[in-house]
């Protein structure tokens, strides 16, 4: 009996003793993940934000926008065509662009841009900081373009950040780009040059890009100014700001802000190429009739870069409302769809066309014609001229050239909702009975699920699926520019 008691007491002591000793349960590969690094350098994070934002600027959103403005068409009834037909809510295969939203904020997005900025500030490298801020301004500005009001000011202070008004976000982006310009102009460097695939760390190129971006985002507020939504700021104030910034913007095609893709593997390639070459859905996307017809009409030399020829060795586009036979696809991988093509995001041509639109709005017709001619001149073999074109016809020429130039670029949606050019017929019928081309993306369910500040999708439908700066939707042919 005594022996049994001794064994029991020894066991209890062992039990309690071991329960209190946790060294067996902690240690190097026990307490921390051996598969992934716990630290990242500023250089590796900078590469990461390029990878993520290249993906965003060439991913689902520009593909959808391409279809909405009918530069692209679609077929086969699967998610590509459905997105083109305005099926893009939380319940759709696009899932209200939850992945794109994550690319804005999460890995390779704002969270890593903020870490880079902190590191650059600690190291007192203003050039690094400035480049990072241009990327961040472009990213946050793109999000405001596409979703309208977005979480921003409370990102680091609230687990459920409120939505900042789109116009407030544009102000924030303007301030961010101004800080970037000041930092870049200081020229203060202390770190190794960033692994900058766009400009190789060249501060002057980033300064010019920041100015063009500022012009772009001023331009996005002109419809709001025309409708008294900017307080004392008049449309003329806005146009003057646009011209002031674009005048300092990208001055030649050599200064274009374009992606860089090695094309050595799919995840390091142009996403438009990846989609054609490595997904099962590339053939669902085809050329859009509105763009092809316009380019055919003036024998545009860029067609071979944009589209494959059809069965008749020509170019033809599809129409969501009246499906067309024998249309052009992208499966032959024309220049714009090759793996190492540098997809343009912000360019000299855009800068000239921004200037043209602003000069025309301020009735500087000659300057506007010169700007448009400069944009034309950047396209070898294009036999178009702005000389003698005035008024509404000149605006149409400016915006249609921009419509061609900005193929594969999210900016076409802002251009369309501001000017209602080209005269598109919205897809009808569509399951949400939207009367106009969607002016924004729905908020993804992933954000709504954990953030009570996100409105229901039905409320977004009731509000017309358009952003604050898009005061009047373009309902179809005949809708007035700048209403």
């Amino acid at each position, binding site marked *: 009996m005594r022996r049994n008691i001794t064994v029991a007491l020894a066991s209890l002591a062992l*039990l309690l003793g071991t329960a209190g000793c946790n060294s067996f349960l902690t240690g190097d590969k026990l307490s921390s993940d051996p598969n992934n690094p716990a630290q990242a350098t500023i250089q590796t994070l900078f590469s*990461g934000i390029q990878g993520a934002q290249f993906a965003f600027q060439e991913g689902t959103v520009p593909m959808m926008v391409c279809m909405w403005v009918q530069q692209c068409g679609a077929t086969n*009834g699967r998610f590509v065509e459905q997105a083109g037909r305005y099926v893009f809510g939380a319940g759709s295969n696009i899932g209200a662009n939850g992945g794109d939203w994550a690319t804005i904020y999460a*890995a390779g997005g704002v969270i890593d841009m903020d870490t880079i900025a902190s590191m650059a500030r600690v190291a007192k490298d203003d050039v690094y900081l400035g480049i990072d801020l241009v990327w961040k301004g472009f990213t946050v500005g793109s999000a405001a373009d596409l979703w309208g009001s977005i979480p921003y000011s409370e990102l680091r202070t609230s687990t459920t950040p409120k939505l900042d008004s789109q116009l407030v976000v544009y102000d924030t982006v303007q301030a961010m780009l101004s800080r970037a310009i000041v930092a870049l102009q200081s020229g203060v460097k202390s770190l190794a040059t960033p692994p900058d695939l766009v400009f190789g760390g060249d501060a002057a190129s980033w300064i010019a890009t920041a100015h063009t971006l500022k012009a772009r985002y001023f331009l996005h507020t002109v419809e709001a100014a025309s409708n008294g939504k900017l307080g004392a700021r008049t449309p003329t104030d806005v146009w003057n700001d646009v011209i002031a910034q674009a005048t300092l913007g990208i001055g030649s095609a050599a200064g274009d802000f374009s992606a860089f893709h090695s094309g050595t593997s799919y995840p390091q390639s142009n996403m438009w190429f990846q989609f054609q070459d490595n997904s099962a*859905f590339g053939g669902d996307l085809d050329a859009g009739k509105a763009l092809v017809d316009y380019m055919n009409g003036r024998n545009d030399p860029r067609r071979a870069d944009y589209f494959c020829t059809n069965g008749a060795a020509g170019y033809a586009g599809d129409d969501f409302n009246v499906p067309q036979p024998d249309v052009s696809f992208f499966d032959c991988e024309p220049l714009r769809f090759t793996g190492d093509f540098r997809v343009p995001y912000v360019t000299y041509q855009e800068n000239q066309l921004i200037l043209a639109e602003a000069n025309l709005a301020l009735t500087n017709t000659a300057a506007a014609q010169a700007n448009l001619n400069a944009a034309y001149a950047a396209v070898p073999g294009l036999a178009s001229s702005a000389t003698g074109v005035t008024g509404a016809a000149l605006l149409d020429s400016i915006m249609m050239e921009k419509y061609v130039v900005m193929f594969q670029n999210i900016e076409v949606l802002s251009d369309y909702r501001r000017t209602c050019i080209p005269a598109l017929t919205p897809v009808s019928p569509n399951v949400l009975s939207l009367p106009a081309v969607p002016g924004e993306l729905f908020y993804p369910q*992933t954000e709504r699920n954990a953030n009570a500040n996100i409105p229901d999708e*039905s409320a977004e439908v009731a509000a017309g699926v358009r952003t604050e700066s898009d005061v009047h939707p373009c309902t179809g042919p005949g809708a007035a520019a700048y209403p």
Partner: protein
Amino acid sequence: MRQLGGVGRQFIALLPFKLSNTVTQDLPVDDEQVIHDAGWLAQGTLDIKDQLHLGAAVRNDGSSTFGRNDLRSWFPKGSLAWEFTKAIGERSWLSYGKARVAYGEAGIEPVPYLTSQTYSSSQILGGISQGTGNLASQAGLPGLASSFTRAASVLKPERSKEFEAGADFGFFKDRADASVTWYNKTSSDVILRAPVNPSSGYLVEGANAATIRNRGWEASLNVRPLQQADYGWDVGLQWARNRSLVQKLPQGLQYVVIGDFNRQIAQTGQPIGVYLGTGFMRCGVSNNADTVVVDGVGTKGVLGTFCGTAPKGALFIGPDGFPVQDPDLRIVQDPNYSWTASVRSSFRFRKLQVSGLLDIRHGGQIWNGTKGALWSYGTHKDTETRATCTKSADPSTCTGNVKTFGQGGWWDGPVAGPGKGTAVSIGEPWYKFIAACPFIGIDEPCIEQGGFVKLREVSVSYTIDAPWVQRAIGFSSIDVRVSGRNLKTWTKYTGYDPETNLGGPISSAAGAGGVDYFNNPQTRSFAFAITLNH
């Protein structure tokens, strides 16, 4: 544990099956997990007069995967059983009786490293569909990006507490036996990758995120009416009912996705695994303030205007005669069965034995995405009869195959709205641009009842034990058995098999069942077996 692996895509030549024979290769998988567990168990049992059985145990479990402050936890359990027939004596009809209760707690450890904050070089950033997306490393420059997973600040073991009570009976000198059990199992601090709002910079966070209760009954009855040396017959019946309920989620979180394809979720107040999808606008279900088009020229109104006297669930019909998508998500499917049962019977006559098993699943719904896709392609049987349309997406250009929503066997039920009673032609615009659930995202047309009765197995066996067997081959006997599985299904489900699930049985067991999307049905198999007994 260390996993090394590689994926090659597109063979260059048919053989060999080597990575070097592929056009492209994914990033190699090199994953290491080190987990230390340490547990202690103390257990005791006590029998009183061979009729009262008591058991008690306590565990102390520790795991390196828990949070730093919660490395160890205690888990008690106990049971009590009383063979009351030993106290009251056997009756002519009751040969055995036992009442039992038990209570136990158990812990589940999380996957490792949920408490580590890391960066990743292998996460796919952005992308349009499978096969697209970028890595953080670009153009040969090394890159990292924040992990999508935010490190858990606190992580305790998931703890389940289960109480069960029941009784076992033997009747008529073991000609029959029966058992009934009631159980109530509550899992608290359930470890999930709980979603966080992506604007925070992360997508998920490992967390003790849920409390889930499972409560139910299990009953069985086995009867052996014929028991003779030369022949015998027995029948077994089993019945079970489980009700799951998600009782708690982290504050501010609407749901946690547990599905691997559809948005099947855990949501407070709902059974586990319901599908948060989309449907058509319905009175009393959709928001009365929802915007609807009220006439042929696009005038806008609100849903509530049309739902005044309509019963709850009435289908809103737009001015064109078709139902309209509700833009808000709602629960459209509950894949959980109301109850399950099985009937097993076997008959033995001398050396011949015939047995069969019937499985029954009552209730539960299936999302038939296969049908939705085939509708879109125009290859489903339903599309054989269809309208002729001059524009594929515009129903106003269709003629023929006329239906009216809400009547005549076409979406029968109450309807409301400006287009109620309007006859429409059902053709490509309906099947491809409204009803094609996997591509449109309106799930309602694809939800079907998933109950079934299935002849799970029939087998016939014969034992040959004549003396020649021993003489000829040196074995005492030969069993010859022929059996067939999944021979026949009785169901209203229109797909191939109501039992199928895209995520397979593991996904079903986790609560995310009822997804049919080009997955294989249960196989029908036939077996012929010869067993040599020595």
